[in-house]
């Protein structure tokens, strides 16, 4: 819940409701991007962004290196598979 998981925004699904598709370690699912959007960075500018996803919401933009490192740590902590399984469950 509190660690979050890094992913990359691959396309916008529903800009009005701030929904985008995010790929997280091979799993794609809809993610809300309201918290990383502002006037200087509208939804259209978000495609390609690496973000930290908490319970289906992108909460922070991060750089690619940070994303890779966090994925490694999650795998080492044994949290990665659990998180992926939960995401897939929710995506159905």
């Amino acid at each position, binding site marked *: *819940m*509190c*660690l*979050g998981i890094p992913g990359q925004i691959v396309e916008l699904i529903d800009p009005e*409701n701030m929904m985008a598709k995010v790929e997280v370690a091979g799993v794609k699912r*809809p993610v*809300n991007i*309201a*918290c*990383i*959007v*502002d006037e200087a960075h509208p939804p259209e500018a978000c495609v390609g962004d690496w973000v*930290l996803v*908490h*319970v*289906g*919401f992108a*909460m*922070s933009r*991060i*750089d690619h290196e*940070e994303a890779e*490192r*966090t994925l*490694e*740590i999650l795998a*080492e*902590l044994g949290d990665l598979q*659990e998180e992926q399984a*939960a*995401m897939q*469950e*929710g*995506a159905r």
Partner: protein
Amino acid sequence: MKYVDEFRDPAKARALVKEITALYEKIPAAHQGPLQLMEFCGGHTHTIFRYGIEQLLPDWIELVHGPGCPVCVLPMGRVDDCVALAERPDVIFTTFGDAMRVPGSKKSLLQAKAEGADVRMVYSPMDALQLAKKHPDRQVIFFALGFETTMPSTALTVLQAEREGIENFSLFCNHITTVPTIKAILDSPDMRIDGFLAPGHVSMVVGEQPFQFVAQHYHRPIVITGFEPLDILQSIWMLLRQMADGRCEVENQYARVVASRGNTAGLQAIAQVFELREFFEWRGLGSIDHSGVRMRPEYARFDAEQKFSVPNLRITDPKSCQCGEVLKGAIRPWQCKVFGTGCTPETPMGALMVSSEGACAAYYNFGDLQELLQRREKEVVHA
């Protein structure tokens, strides 16, 4: 050093440990007895155990594992309320997976599900909202849990439900707040914490400013900390540097994720949907002023507590369970009478054994269980 080779950058870890050790001479307080540094967040606790960080540190530094695991501090009465809501025939009760096994006074949500209640695990509150759209004839309740990190997500989900006019969706709101809880810890007479590692992802939402009181009014250094083992070592070093220099400040070690002003959109959504409760009950810590939020009256129709009647009874924790003392740092997890015997991750009695972020589960999973139990035996004999 036993564990350091597992670090991403072992050389850097070694250098940090060396610098930490060298600071002893410059910190007079450390000569009076071990310094107690509290990591508030359960995520930090998890990393500390996984990488054996305590074993790397000199013995004049003690890490106290704080109450920052929302599943662990959930009082039994609240779990009973969840079960009561879930057992209503018209309800689909949705929850994050880690809340399923928390024991209530009679049963957990997992047991209620086995007995026929419609309890479903979801990854996101948005998934619960989707379920509500799919089942317009049922009431879908989402068990909203967590500190400020998850508050924007539930607030934004409620705002979307309002926008789309989805009336069969509601939250059972059990969000808790970080700052009043740190204040309660600092005000408690039996605690002596010398410095804090502040939770990284709570800070990502709330920013640096809310932690200023720790430095300014309580004169304790506090460092916002990331979740990698190196982050934690570096933050401990930063805390000790402040002590050596005689400074008390909020420092941000996790600036690559945490903006000093926090997350504006997230804070707006929180302020729009939630308001502070006068107090909230914590397992082990009792009632803490302003330590939880409820939904504003404008959103009453999305509030399960107002929409349905919940029993809302206070249930005292089992007598033999010492989660409270562990949370306050008064005893170490393995010193609890039921640790590893009456209370295990498979059959938890106390909440700290339920979640992998709980201090007891961490000791159980990563410590040498036999050795810990023997140590407890010896202490009992000598007591």
